[in-house]
């Protein structure tokens, strides 16, 4: 394929990743959040396919397939299932940051990481497009962090975590250490699965605070024991 076109497609998909992330930041509806997440992973796998097309290395294709299967299909299904069990549909509460300000903070994060990485750009020895990919990957990790602390419902926190993980995959794609990439992906996905099953196992409700309330009766029970 035409290398120039591949570069342009890479650029477009990188920007789309950022935009999808900001949509995740600001959406309240859980259904569309999960859909946007699966789209996010789809774009990520598209990037991997682009890598395959430009370098011809089949591990990229394998990674893309793995991403599509696990992140665009399996995990969203699991999340939907969890959501269905929790019987919640929206997450309208924000901690510390309102959606608009978190979008601007993510812009700041991108700019900031741009200048952090400009110091080690020569050391990494990357072309400017790859360098941009590294920046976006790193900022996705940071934005994922931001989603985790600024949203209240557990299920959105998980999506934030998954966004972080996508950022890690993106980073490794652009820095280019494939075995590590596969290892990490499997590891991370496992972790997510564990997290989700944990929630289900606990019968945890929508948010951490609710969960603490549930634990409260036990707390009182212990207190009563102590008084006696």
């Amino acid at each position: 394929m035409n290398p120039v076109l591949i570069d342009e497609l890479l650029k477009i998909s990188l920007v789309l990743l950022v935009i999808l992330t900001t949509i995740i930041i600001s959406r309240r509806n859980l259904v569309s959040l999960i859909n946007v997440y699966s789209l996010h992973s789809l774009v990520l796998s598209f990037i991997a396919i682009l890598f395959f097309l430009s370098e011809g290395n089949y591990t990229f294709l394998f990674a893309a397939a793995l991403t599509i299967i696990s992140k665009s299909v399996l995990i969203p299904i699991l999340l939907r299932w969890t959501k269905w069990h929790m019987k919640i549909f929206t997450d309208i509460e924000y901690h510390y940051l309102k959606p608009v300000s978190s979008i601007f903070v993510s812009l700041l994060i991108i700019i900031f990481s741009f200048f952090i990485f400009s110091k080690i750009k020569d050391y990494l020895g990357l072309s400017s497009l790859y360098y941009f990919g590294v920046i976006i990957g790193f900022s996705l990790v940071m934005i994922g962090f931001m989603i985790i602390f600024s949203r209240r419902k557990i299920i959105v926190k998980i999506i934030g975590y998954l966004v972080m993980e996508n950022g890690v995959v993106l980073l490794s794609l652009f820095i280019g250490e494939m075995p590590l990439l596969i290892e990490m992906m499997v590891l991370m996905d496992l972790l997510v699965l564990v997290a989700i099953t944990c929630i289900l196992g606990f019968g945890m409700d929508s948010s951490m605070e609710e969960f603490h309330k549930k634990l409260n009766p036990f707390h009182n029970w212990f207190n009563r024991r102590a008084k006696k």
Partner: protein
Amino acid sequence: MISFFLFAIVNILVVLILAPFYISLIKKVKALFQGRKGPKLFQAYYNLLKLFKKESIYSTNSSFIMRVAPYINIICSIVAILFVPLLFIPDNYFGFGNIILFLYILALAKFFMALAGLDAGSTFGGMGSSREMSISSIIEPIVIIIFATLAFVYNSVNFFEIFGATSVGLVHASLWLLLIPLIIVLLTETARIPIDNPETHLELTMVHEAMILEQSGKNLALMELSSGVKQVLLMAIIINLFFPIGFNLPLSLIGIGTSLIAFLIKSIILAISIGIIESFIAKSRLFRLPIIFAIAFLLSLITLMMEMLL
């Protein structure tokens, strides 16, 4: 010189004649999606003619602003038509075509429209102009960033030059990303869902409609026509930037005719897709609009960043 006059006449006539068509086309598409039959495709023309024939009623509270605003609006819109080449690019353009001047001429029209909204002393008008000015001011950074990107890539701030350069296709495929913020700008400036709902007269959702609520007869027709013109112009910007097939053919009768037909087809497709977009999304709350704009801003800024830095 002659080609510019030809351009001016063709451009103005085409836009003025086509402007009402898209209004009713979008209405028709939405109606079909809602399972209704919808208005006739030329209903907007009948409406305008009907309004032109009615007498205009002015409020006792109103002043010269109310009487002047419709004319200023239509004149500004017509002048703005000269800034956006629709079918072909003339040899000389006499200082027309500056993007920022184009934006600010439209802003002048909006300024007077907002004043006219306040003029009658009705609560609806004031509400409309307050909201319109707020929305149009927070959309402004996005518009500027979009056009700054184009200015960087094509090293020009003139529509004629930029369209001349894009008529052979975009330089970078990544400029396609600008399509999304441009469509958001289009939806905002033409008062469409999710930013504004042009259909209802409900105070919660009214923005643009509330502002021209006190207009009547001929004046209302002028206001409607000028917002139709604005819609065609913004659509033409999108079409000529991203889908330049058939644009700027060699200057002859056949060339212009072919360009016109190509433009008609492309713009009908665009209008239908606007209708479809509108049918698929709900009206957003007024104070959740900044989120949409923030995302559009981020998108356009990152595109600009890429164009500058990569």
